[in-house]
Structures are given as C-alpha cells and as structure tokens.
C-alpha cells in the first residue's frame, strides 16, 4: 500500500482553501490549470510505460480534477476516514487519470507515478484499492462501478452518514446491462446521496458509441429509472462544480458530462485511435506545449 505525501497533501489543502475563497473566474482558472498539469503528467506516464488509455484520460480529467480539488470531502492523509465522500472510477481503464489526480492531491508521492505499469508496481493498468490509497474499489471490467456505488450509497443511509458517493462511468460502458440493474435499484431506493457522472465523449474502444449501440436519448433513460438528470459541458469546471454540489432532490442524480475524448491535445481530440495509442516522445512535447497555454 502506498502512503500519503504530507507536503503535497499540504499544498492540496492550501489549494482547496484558496479555491473555497475564490470568485468564479479564479476558480475556473485554478481548476483548468490543475487539470492540464495532470494531463501532462499523465502523458509522460503513458509515454514511459508504453501503454495506457490516453483518450479517455484526457476526457475525464476535468471531472476528476473538479471532484478532488473542489468538491470531495476527503483527506489524503486519512484515506480510510469513514465519513469521507466516495469516488469510484468505473471506467477503470483510465487509471492513469486517477493516479495523476491522486498523486497531485498527496494520496501518495508523485515519484511513484514513474513506476506506472512496471513490474511489481502498485500502479497497475487498472486501479487496485488494496495497493493504492484513494482508490475505493477495483475496476477494469466495465459495468461494475455503479452497482458497487449503489451499495456504498445504501451503506451511507444505513449508517446515517452524510457522505456522498460519486461514480464516473464511460458512455460506452453503459452498454453493459449491469448498469441498468443498478440504475433501477438506485431509483427505486431514492438514493439522493448518489451522483453518477457519465463521461459522454461519444467514442468507445473501436468506434463511435452511437454507431456501435445507440445510447441516446440517454437523459430519458435515466429519468425513466427514477433519476434526476443534468446535462452539462464536461470540460467547463464551473458547470461541473455546480452540478456536483447542487441542492439535491429525493432522487439520485445523473450528470451527463459532454466531453471530448483526447481533450486538450489537438491531434488526439475526438479520434478513436487514441483510445489506447501511445504517444511518441515528440508528440508528448507537442501536447505538453498545447496544454501549457
């Protein structure tokens, strides 16, 4: 099990405080910069390891950054704190994005990222809760995160805890039927402490989602299962922040976050081959320059 990095955790705390005190424009800028730093970290990790799921990482990083740097009640130095909010990354193939975010928050030392996918590393191609603090459940096979999150939300109710459960789903992932079984349970049980975020980048591994197995109208599907639905720009940090912290009704919330796979790197954006292609050293330099703008 990796351990917290106190200095980075302290920096993360300062960021959270400054964020809480800041006005909207400053907040937007803070999260934008932070997310792009994680994007660059992630690209280097993938380049070093020679594997990873770069497209989905770039897609989901604004969501993860907004959660960890603006929303989640967690403590990197007490990853097991019982009443912490829970974040489940159901699209576990984008572990790189989660690792970059957890390291930047101080859950473990950033130097560990250099071991990503290497022999005996804790940082596997898919996240493992036994080895990595901040990872709430093991994912990798798609369609597992939502049922587990429903269990976590039910547990919070049973123990009268105010903790909130957030789960990030891929849109392709929603083709797995297990999601709809869980969606039904969450709606039936009126789990107002559960927020599912769909990273709606409209691409999956081999093709466009709508060409493979149509999901639209996705909002109606969730509504029909008893959920409140918000549809937002998944790269607009303030919209994400508002959606994650909005006053809740008596139903679970589904945030359909419209995103772009490969976001932030011009030659990757909305291109299916970047699902798991590995960028060359040169491409990483180009990408990092774009992200630093």
């Amino acid at each position, binding site marked *: 099990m990796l351990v917290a990095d106190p200095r980075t955790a302290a920096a993360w705390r300062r960021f959270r405080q400054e964020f809480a005190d800041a006005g909207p424009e400053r907040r937007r800028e803070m999260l934008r910069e932070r997310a792009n730093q994680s994007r660059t970290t992630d690209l280097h990790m993938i380049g070093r390891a020679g*594997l990873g799921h770069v497209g989905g990482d770039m897609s989901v990083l604004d969501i993860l950054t907004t959660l960890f740097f603006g929303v989640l009640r967690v403590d990197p130095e007490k990853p097991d704190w019982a009443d912490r909010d829970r974040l489940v990354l159901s699209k576990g193939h984008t572990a790189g994005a989660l690792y970059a975010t957890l390291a930047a928050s101080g859950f473990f030392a950033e130097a560990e990222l250099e071991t990503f996918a290497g*022999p005996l590393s804790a940082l596997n*191609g898919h996240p493992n809760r036994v080895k990595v603090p901040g990872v709430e459940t093991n994912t990798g096979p798609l369609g597992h995160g939502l049922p587990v999150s429903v269990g976590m939300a039910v547990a919070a109710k049973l123990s009268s805890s105010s903790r909130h459960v957030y789960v990030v789903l891929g849109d392709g*992932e929603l083709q797995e039927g297990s999601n709809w079984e869980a969606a039904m349970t969450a709606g039936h049980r009126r789990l107002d402490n559960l927020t599912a975020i769909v990273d709606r980048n409209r691409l999956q591994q*081999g*093709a466009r989602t709508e060409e493979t*197995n149509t999901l639209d109208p996705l909002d109606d599907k969730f509504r029909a299962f008893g959920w409140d639905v918000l549809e937002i720009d998944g790269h607009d940090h303030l919209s994400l922040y508002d959606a994650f912290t909005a006053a809740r009704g008596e139903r679970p919330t589904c945030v359909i976050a419209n995103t772009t796979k490969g976001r932030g790197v011009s030659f990757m954006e909305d291109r299916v081959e970047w699902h798991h292609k590995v960028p060359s050293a040169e491409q990483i330099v180009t990408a990092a320059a774009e992200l630093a703008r």
Partner: protein
Amino acid sequence: MSAPVATETFDNRVAFAEELIALAREDERIVAVCNDSVGSSNLVQFQKEFPDRLINVGIAEQDMVGVGAGLALSGYVPFVCGASPFLTGRALEQIKADVAYSQSPVVLCGMSPGMAYGELGPTHHSIEDLSWLRAIAGLDVVVPADPAETRSAVRWAAHAARPVFLRVGRFKVPAVTGDRPFTFGAATTLRDGSDVTVVAAGTMVSRALQAAEEAAEQGVSVRVLNMSTIAPLDEDAIRRAMAETRGIVTAEEATTTGGLGAAVAAVVVTERAPVPMRLLGIHREFAPTGTTAFLLEHFGLTAGDIRQAAIGLARTDA
C-alpha cells in the same frame, strides 16, 4: 546446444482471423459477433469484407453470447469473439444455459487469454477460463498451440455443429505442431520420451519442447504432449504416459485449480498405479503488475522451470 524450437514467433489471432475469413468466403452461414472488440479480436479485415456479417453489440458480453446463441439456433455459425476474461467471466451463465445446455452450436472465441494483458492486471487476465468452462457439460474446450493448429481448430469448430470454446492466444509463440493438424479430443506427441511426460497447452507447448531438449542434455528423456483439447480430455494419452514414463508435469498459462493440471490429475489418481505429478501454473493468486513475459517467469512457467520439474520427477524414486 541445438534448440528444437524455432525462434520466429506468431500471434495466433492472425491465423485465427485469416482462417475465419477463408471460411466465411466458402460458407454464408459464418458470422462474427463481438463486444467493441473489432480491433482486439483482429476482425478488421472480416468487417471490411463482410460488413453485414459482423455483429458488434458493443460492450455487452452477456448480450453478445445470447445473440450468438440465437444466431446458432437459427442456422448460422457464429464465432463469438471477445477478450477471454470478459467473454467467459461475464457471460458464464449465458455460456452454460444458452450455449451448452441448449446445445446451440456457437464457437466461443476467447481472445488474448492467460496473462496476455500482463500490465492491465488480474481483471484482464484470463486464467480461470479453463476451470470454469471445463466444468460445463457439453462444452468442448480447445487451446491451440500455434498458428497452424489455430487454423485447423477454427476450421474444425466451424463444422463441429456443437458448442465449442476456442482459446486464441495473443502472446507470441513459435510454430511447433508442424504438419500435425488439430485432432479434436486427441493429444499429439510432439516429442517422445521415456522418463517423464510433460503435458502442455497453448503458450506452454513450445516451452515444454525447449525444456525437453535441455533435459535430454542432462540425460533425462522427456515426452511432450500437446493437449490442445482440454475437455473432453484424451485420457488414453495420459494412461499411456503413466505406463510408459515415471511422472507427469503439466504446464498451463492458467490457474491449476480446475484447469489442465487438475484434469490430468483426476485421470492419474483413478489408476491403480498413479505416478507422481507436478502442476505448473498459477496457484490461487492474483498476479502482481508486470508484462506477460515477466509474469510467466514470476509464476514459474519458463522452459527452465518445466525442465527442473521434469528432472526433479525423473530423479525421485517414488
């Protein structure tokens, strides 16, 4: 030191895809069903040539196997292709009820099995597939060792008219079967020997041959059986090995709990004069992070490990 095994290696998925396309040209009933895995199942060319006969249901393995069963029950010959961990694990009940129990002639193609997805971790390793599927009545379990055997197994499966699971390796292997075609239910003797028998499947076959060659240099004569049908098992070949050699080593890129080793052991213990065995494989453990090659070494599945096990058995006076 002359290595018996060629150094050029092949991805069995290539042979798989080529043979499937050849079959599809001959027979309109051949269709492919997949789970957002056109690329990873090597079906890109198939899709180009037969766009209507490639049914990609998206990321939905239970649906995929059910759809395959429906196609089979309507006269088609579906090759249902997905990464082996998800095809077998996710859709296990569909495989049992819709395919095996219903006797629907589906060819289930478990792509990239074993630890082919090394660094992607245990969720993506398919080491339980042989144990799970071997337990299902009426389902044939086939593990070709190299491209030639993959081709003949694909051709056989297309005409078998029964439920089949075909484990199609991604980890590159040398050609080892020569001109011996796949024969359903029969182990092939790739090298004869009189001291110990190594029973291997898939990726382990070339390693077993290498081990036998090295053992010979140390004066131990090792027989190598390519057990490409795991279920039903060639029990006669095991019995002959027991009568003619003094011990059996099994080697599989899978868990020994219920896989090839357990299948062979079940035959061995029913004999009046059982021989000692060593089961090489993974023993109820999730793998650490690492490449496939690293993990095969980690779990003691190199030619050197097989050789050691064989020599160890040859020198035990059991």
